[in-house]
């Protein structure tokens, strides 16, 4: 039986089994390949997407658990926090290989929405589930602070 998913503001009907992890439906069925596979066990965070605005690991999220909730992937991440985070990422040249960065950015956007002026401890906690093998952590931290400043400034 097809399952309806609300992805980046659109309704998608998919025929995958209900216990299929959302990650593979996004990537294989819907072609949203910005969300990455890195570990498959919710340890690396490369597959992070938002469900009703909350960051989740899509590799450990069966599609039949999504229900009517709205899924947002890196391709559909918009808004002041998303814009500020992306701009800061580019301004600091955060990525190296870049493979983890979709997940890092999705976690960072969610962090700014929860804690608009995060402390270093907040960043350690919130980003602790996103691994970067290139160890771009310092630039990620700096870019989050940059983005927090940018969103705090009225424009």
């Amino acid at each position, binding site marked *: 039986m097809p399952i309806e998913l609300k992805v980046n503001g659109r309704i998608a009907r998919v025929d995958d089994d209900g216990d299929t992890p959302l990650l593979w439906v996004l990537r294989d069925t819907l072609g949203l390949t910005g969300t990455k596979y890195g570990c498959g066990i919710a340890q690396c965070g490369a597959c992070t997407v938002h469900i009703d605005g909350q960051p*989740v690991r899509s590799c450990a999220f069966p599609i039949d658990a999504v229900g009517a909730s709205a899924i947002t992937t890196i391709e559909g991440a918009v808004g002041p926090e998303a814009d500020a985070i992306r701009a800061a990422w580019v301004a600091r040249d955060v990525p190296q290989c870049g493979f983890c960065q979709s997940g890092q950015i999705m976690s960072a956007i969610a962090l700014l929405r929860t804690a608009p002026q995060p402390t270093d401890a907040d960043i350690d906690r919130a980003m*602790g589930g996103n691994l970067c093998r290139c160890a771009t952590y310092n630039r990620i931290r700096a870019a989050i602070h940059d983005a927090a400043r940018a969103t705090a400034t009225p424009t």
Partner: protein
Amino acid sequence: MSARPRRRRRIGCLALLAIVVASQILTVALLLRPRTMPAPSVIPIVSAKVDRVSLRPVAAFQAIDDPAARSVALFREAGRVIQHPRCLNCHPRSDRPNQTDAMHPHLPAVMRGPDGGGEPVLRCATCHRDRNVDAAGVPGNPKWRLAPAEMTWERQSLGQICRQILDPARSHMSRDELRRHMAEDELVGWAWHPGGDRAPAPGTQAEFGALVAAWLETGARCPA
């Protein structure tokens, strides 16, 4: 007499080319040798043996005449569940849960937060769902969260745990609520269905609940 230490060699492009060409020549010969892959055969399914550890039933404790001794014995038996990694991992001594049968600190370093469900910046629900997700090996339950900070069991003796859970100031439960938590709470019940390769708690939740009820009925005596 001194010889200079030999210079470090680096993999230059020439060396690479040499290796490439050499492997090419070498393998042409190998390739000419026909190799066939084995054909599939039929292998019967061997169901994996599950080692379930049982609990002694309440009846087994009837032989103990002294009610106080029987109560302590019942709690010791229930303690095999209480002090199992499935329970201790979410009754940690700090704000950070443990994980796995080896009870190592949870990765990532998720913290208790205001409601036991994680801090606002990293909630349990980032990774855990209302069920075990076998595809990812990630455990879950609708009530997935940490026990209150006052209910630290990790590195406590069974006696300390016993006195702790009987103290309403720390357990936030009456004795009846305590019995129902142990016997009926679905999050507690997860300990017997943890999914993946996690060892389940001994016995069943019903058997555990019966032990707890019998312990309460016999005066809820605690080990030393």
